[in-house]
């Protein structure tokens, strides 16, 4: 397709008898300057075929780390699933949360878990936390081709580092770059809002319990402003998936515990919908 307003000499010699000449300005624009048309229904891209998982938050605490994810997967503006799990234990000492193309992301987690377990069984000792984080980066890099076609998958990785005795947190970009985060991070469509919330109330000396509450609060803020992030579904009793990481290993926070924290957060939001006030 040419973007020239004037027909090329070749077109002038042999004009397309059926399509080239039109007296409709809209058709002319669609052919030559499509960007000037008011936005119509966009072409369906391959990525729209797959549901998308949304927000994951994670933070380090005084005793380790906490990672939490909402339960929603979306396909365009529809909710594809209300109770999807996007945060998993990668092994006994680390967790992985994933945002992006859900089917591929869940497969990636499955492969990553077998990768860690396979190494541990063959070598008789687990990988170091940095080793696990780098391996995950390499797997994301291997996925770059699909990411360019729109099926982006981004993980957030947290674990207990046995060698230095603390919880650590890693984020990634689509090219497999692995970056250690200090404090907190979030990924997915609601990440901006979750990070904004955490920025105000995160403290490095959080206990695990406070970390859990902070994550639930941040997810509430993400769901508050991002349509693709699911808020707590009190009617269906669907709550965020939360994992805690301590020296004792990874532990999924019990459903009753999360229900209790969520109910407290919802009750406090009824008094102050924007969440806890940060002191100036």
């Amino acid at each position, binding site marked *: 397709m040419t973007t020239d307003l004037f027909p090329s000499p070749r077109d002038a010699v042999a004009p397309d008898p059926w399509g080239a000449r039109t007296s409709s300005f809209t058709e002319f624009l669609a052919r030559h300057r499509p960007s000037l048309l008011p936005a119509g229904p966009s072409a369906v891209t391959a990525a729209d075929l797959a549901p998308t998982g949304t927000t994951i938050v994670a933070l380090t605490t005084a005793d380790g780390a906490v990672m939490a994810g909402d339960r929603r997967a979306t396909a365009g503006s529809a909710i594809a699933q209300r109770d999807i799990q996007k945060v998993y234990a990668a092994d*006994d000492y680390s967790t992985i949360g994933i945002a992006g193309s859900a089917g591929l992301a869940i497969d990636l987690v*499955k*492969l990553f878990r*077998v990768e860690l*377990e*396979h190494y541990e*069984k*063959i070598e*008789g000792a687990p990988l170091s936390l940095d080793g696990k984080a780098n391996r995950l980066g390499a797997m994301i890099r291997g996925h770059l081709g699909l990411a360019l076609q729109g099926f982006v998958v981004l993980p957030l990785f947290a674990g207990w580092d046995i060698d230095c005795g603390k919880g650590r947190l890693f984020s990634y970009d689509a090219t497999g770059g692995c970056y250690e985060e200090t404090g907190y991070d979030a990924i997915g469509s609601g990440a901006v809002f979750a990070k904004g919330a955490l920025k105000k109330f995160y403290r490095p000396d959080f206990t695990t319990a406070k970390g859990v509450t902070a994550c639930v609060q941040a997810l509430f803020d993400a769901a508050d402003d991002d349509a693709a992030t699911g808020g707590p579904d009190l009617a269906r009793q669907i709550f965020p998936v939360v994992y805690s990481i301590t020296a004792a290993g990874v532990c999924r926070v019990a459903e009753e515990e999360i229900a209790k924290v969520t109910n407290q957060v919802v009750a406090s939001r009824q008094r102050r919908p924007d969440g806890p006030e940060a002191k100036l």
Partner: protein
Amino acid sequence: MTQPMFYVSPEQQVKDRADFARAGIARGRSALVARYAGGILFAAENRSQSLHKVAELYDRIGFAAVGRYNEFDNLRIAGIRYADVRGYSYDRRDVTGRMLANAYAQVLGTIFSAVTEKPYEVELCVAEVGETPDKDQIFHLTFDGSVADEAGFCVMGGSAESVAAALGEDFAPDLPLHQALGRAIAALSADNGGEDLGTDALEVAVLERDRPRARKFRRLTAADIAAALTPPAAPARRRPRAKQ
């Protein structure tokens, strides 16, 4: 100058190869695998802390071997790969001890009868802990690829017969861990001139039926072995229920 050719009957060939493999296996120390109330116990005399004779293959499946280290370690890695590929491509529940035992039997049988290769000087055991005790399985594989499904325990290596005789005297598949481990160590010590093996000369692991994780295999350190040998404190006796 050419070598003179002699006819060797197939019977003689098999016998020679079997003798060769047996002699190799008999040089090593023994290992045993036995059922106990909470799952399956692996114990071996092993003075190395890093060259293991007992290993995890999959969620509910463990492996023990005696003989030539490089050979059984190759088989261990092959088993882990086989199990992980199966579990990844189908489902974790689709990996079974029987399947792995069959795969090992095929490999060992093929190597044993291949004229150009020497037979493997190894003896293996693949054990799977079931959801319930009646689903526990212990497969015993020998160097020629034969498989035996053992009911209660399996002993391999140097003085397997004397160890099996010592263990068989008072074996029961429903003993608590401290008793089962005590008897296993006593039986392995039969190989040691009757002197009890210390915790640093032992390699012990268990497949625990009630372990709250998918992976039931747990390796016991020297301290864990010592702790496992002391009987758990007796539970407080309940007051007899009043008659209604």
